[in-house]
């Protein structure tokens, strides 16, 4: 299980290095990348802010939950923060497991959980007009 936050560029290989054993028949990788437009508005870039110390804890917890669901400890996830350009990857996830259904499910679980509860915030910069913090999700507080 590997989970980290970085300001450096990220790529699929960074998370692939963390997964895949001789017991695994399936590896799924997800990359989230910055799009050139959002809701029809041309985007020039993104800036991610994060509560880094908490985000690393939460990311590792999400990876652990995904692994338990899929019966694997081969989960790696990285979230990039800071300034990103169009085309840059903001998140990379890799999961490997004996069978493919579990690997797909776990990778999907990680990206959905990141969007729901990772303490990271996204500010969009536009070709024209002022930047804007994007609407987000309110994470559920435990009992």
């Amino acid at each position, binding site marked *: 299980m590997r989970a980290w936050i970085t300001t450096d560029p990220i790529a699929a290989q960074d998370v692939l290095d963390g997964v895949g054993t001789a017991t695994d028949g399936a590896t799924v990788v997800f990359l*989230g990348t910055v799009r050139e437009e959002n809701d029809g508005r041309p985007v020039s870039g993104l800036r*991610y*802010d*994060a*509560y880094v*110390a*908490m*985000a690393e*804890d939460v990311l590792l917890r999400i990876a652990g939950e995904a692994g338990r669901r899929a019966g694997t400890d081969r989960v790696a996830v990285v*979230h990039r923060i800071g300034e990103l350009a169009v085309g840059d990857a*903001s*998140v990379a996830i890799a999961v490997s497991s004996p069978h493919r259904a579990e690997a797909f499910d776990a990778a999907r679980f990680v*990206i959905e959980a*990141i*969007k*729901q*509860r*990772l*303490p*990271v*915030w*996204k*500010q969009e910069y536009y070709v024209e007009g002022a930047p804007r*913090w*994007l*609407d*987000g*999700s*309110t*994470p*559920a*507080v*435990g009992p």
Partner: protein
Amino acid sequence: MQVHLLLFALYRDLTGVDELNVEVADGATAAAALAGLRQSDPRFAVLPDRPVIALNRELAQLDAVLRDGDELALLPPVAGG
């Protein structure tokens, strides 16, 4: 006693504050500390009444009781990925 307040993203932009040491009464809840802050410092008046908070890097309820040295973070709705 003192808690260490952290603000992020929109809340940081709205208040112009990224972190601040705040004096709070012994036994105060997070809600009470924030209400006091909103009253004493006009920069915090723009924040929502009941923001999501994290106490020492864990999500917490607003009625959580603060302890000296706690790290209290105000979290806008999150938008990672």
